[in-house]
């Protein structure tokens, strides 16, 4: 076994930090499995949304409440934040000065916050049109699915904050590195879920 062997899916630390690379093997594999079971939760909520879509109970319909502009902006924001997190990961792997990692994490954090602000604005717009979760089965399913993704983004943002503090306190020790790898997987996973939301909730909802 060479030190640069790929030990888990995703960014590996092989070649730059052999010791942490070995430790990361089961830690990152375990996190992949966690994401898999989280993905099952989202899959079921997508299925629920599909089942409940016609149950508008005489209330607002997808076409009447969804807007393409802001959701497209949200998509771009989240995808860009994945890119900036990727930059942070690469900086971490190749031992850049801590300032560089900090800056990329801060940009990611900022993009995440702007995304949440947009999403909050969407929801309050829907509320203003009488589209709140207690109105119909369709809206219950919508507000069961999309805000859960939002909650995940909030969790990711808190996690980024904790990691920024840990970077200051501990520097790049093995646990900080492994947790940055995990956080990366989590953040990219949220992207994938959002793409699914954008293309199965918003886009078909806007078709006439």
């Amino acid at each position, binding site marked *: 076994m060479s030190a640069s062997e790929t030990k888990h899916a995703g960014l590996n630390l092989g070649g730059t930090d052999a010791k942490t690379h070995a430790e990361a093997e089961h830690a990152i594999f375990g996190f992949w499995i966690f994401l898999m*079971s989280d993905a099952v939760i989202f899959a*079921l909520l997508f299925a629920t949304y599909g089942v409940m879509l016609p149950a508008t109970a005489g209330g607002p319909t997808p076409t009447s409440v969804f807007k393409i502009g802001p959701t497209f902006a949200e998509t771009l924001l989240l995808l860009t934040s994945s890119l900036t997190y990727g930059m942070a990961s690469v900086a971490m792997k190749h031992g850049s000065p801590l300032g560089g990692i900090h800056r990329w994490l801060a940009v990611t954090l900022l993009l995440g916050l702007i995304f949440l602000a947009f999403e909050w604005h969407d929801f309050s717009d829907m509320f203003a049109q009488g589209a709140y979760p207690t109105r119909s089965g369709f809206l219950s399913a919508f507000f069961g699915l999309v805000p859960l993704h939002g909650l995940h983004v909030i969790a990711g943002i808190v996690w980024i904050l904790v990691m920024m503090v840990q970077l200051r*306190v501990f520097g790049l020790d093995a646990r900080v590195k492994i947790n940055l790898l995990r956080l990366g997987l989590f953040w990219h996973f949220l992207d994938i879920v959002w793409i699914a939301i954008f293309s199965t909730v918003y886009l078909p909802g806007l078709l006439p």
Partner: protein
Amino acid sequence: MTDPVWPMLLGRFTWDSLPFVRAWHNPTTNELIAAAAGGIVVVSGIAVLVLITVLRRWRWLWTEWLTSLDHKKIGILYIVIALVMLARALVEANLMRLQQAVAVGNPGFVAPEHFAELFSTHGSIMIFFMAMPFLTGLINYLVPLQIGARDVAFPVLNAISLWLTAAGAALMMASLVIGRFSTGGWSGYPPFTEIGFNPGVGPDYWIWAVTLGSLASTMTGINIAVTIYKMRCPGMKLMRMPLFTWTSLCTAILMIFAMPPLTVATALLALDRYLGFHFFTNALGGNMMHYANLFWMFGHPEVYIVILPAFGIYSEVVSTFSSKELYGYKSLVIATMAIAVLSFTVWLHHFFTMGQSASINAAFGIATMAIGVPTGVKIYNWIWTMFRGEVRFTTPMIYALAFMMTFVLGGLTGIILAFPPLDYIVHNTLFLVAHFHNMLIPGTLYGLLAAYTFWFPKVFGYRLDERWGRISCLCWIVGFYLAFMPLYVLGASGMARRTQAVMETAYRPWLYMAEAGALILLCAFAALIVQLWVSIRRRGANDVFVGDPWDGRALEWSVSAPPPEFNFARLPHVDQAHWFYDAKRKYAPYAPPIAYHDIWMLRNSAVAPVIGIASGAATFGLVWHMWWLAIFGLIVIFAAVVARSFVRDTHRVIPASEVARIDESWREATARAQPVPREIETSPANQGLALVRS
């Protein structure tokens, strides 16, 4: 009495929430039973606290058990929870049987609402807080030992799983003392459990207790799967793993995929109840049939989550007590995996009568029958393993034999139920109740009890009393047949399940018979307690410190009983499936390692107890609408997780000299011990060293 008391602080608590107050105002047998049950919980809880204080065992309990991250101690604690909950659910089963036996043509002594609470708690406890913790405890204890590891992959997560399970069990117990439990059965079907029909705390107790158990099991599944995939000792290829480890792996995979649907089902029901969503309500587009789908997407794989580990246990037991290699190991592994996959394709057979088209029912009926094939393969494997073996009828072996007979019988009634047209006829009758008890009692409970008897000497260092073990085993078998065979007859004659009072007098003799069976099952549990008591008193005579009382095959038998904290002084290197069994016959398995090394183990951590207690408090707050408590609990959980991520001093070292001291004292004991032949392995002559003839 029905006004809320300090609603800001105590939410919707009223004095009437206490069963003692209700019994005081309305002293019927029904209320007195509820008050007595609550009283038993309070008194035994206080008794335990007093006992620990009097014996000055608090510090010991905290450092040795509650904060320990040792997978073996966590495993034992799981099983303690399971046994306590088994006692309660068994008493509830007896109350229900007694009520039905008495209530032929009259209302009996348990009121309808109370009866509904009884079958709801009985089912919820037996699945989530008896079967699940019991098998999780066994997996926790055994898998790292069987694959030659020092611990599971994520020990802190493991402790958190334990404490979440404990919090769920505590919530079940709290429902006996404060408020009432759900009346919606173990599956909690809406719209009956929605706020419109059930505004009380009952369904909320069910939702949160089950959710805690579900989250705990998801994390256990992740932990065990990673442990088995990544922590095996050198040479332990997948196809060299003991069968119990294989079935644990399949169970872990099922947990990862099947627990999230349960979490989703309970979470959406909670959104309906707390925030007025319309997922499963009658009005405004709710769809209660969607709940049935979500619940049984968990519920059917769950059947295999609780049965597969038992298959693994039987494989170990049958092969050990036949002194033969497991027949068709590879086919057993394939059959286990096949069952794991097929278990996701049959969930709809739980609601054939819901109104989907006949073709859909037919597809799921065929899938259901198909799942019988790999199960049948296994039965043949075990029979062929015994063939021409040196079979000894020890307690675990009797459980295994009773399982094979009884389980096949239950499987046959399962085939009947898999035909949608036949299912229409016996749907919702006692026939179904008889069927699933016929699967789960031999398929899970017997297996767990066989494992308890089989591995007890490994865990505690002395054998269990064989005579009381057999008495208990016999009672479990006879009691099962008496209690459940009549239910087939009753079900086929049309008696609905969950019936509080019976109008048809022709049912009476069958109900009497079932009640007699339930009493024998209670005796079986009592015999189990007596066995434990007798065994503890005679532990000196039954000592098996050397650690191999049954001439075992897998690696857990190659270390002392109980195993040292670090499991293996030196991690084993294996070159075949039955390395230890073979080593006993060919080399010197007890030869000391060439050198001892320092071993790094995790320090204790209070993070899991803190998270467990906080999540218990938070969910209790949610049940009673004590919002301050719910918020406080959630903040504590969050703070504990973040605080733990800042702890860097997580390990301590066991110096090589200490490892050597522990290991050498055990090796001296093996050298002193008299090897025991198989014929007298259940006598005090058994010191844990197997006599090898080859």
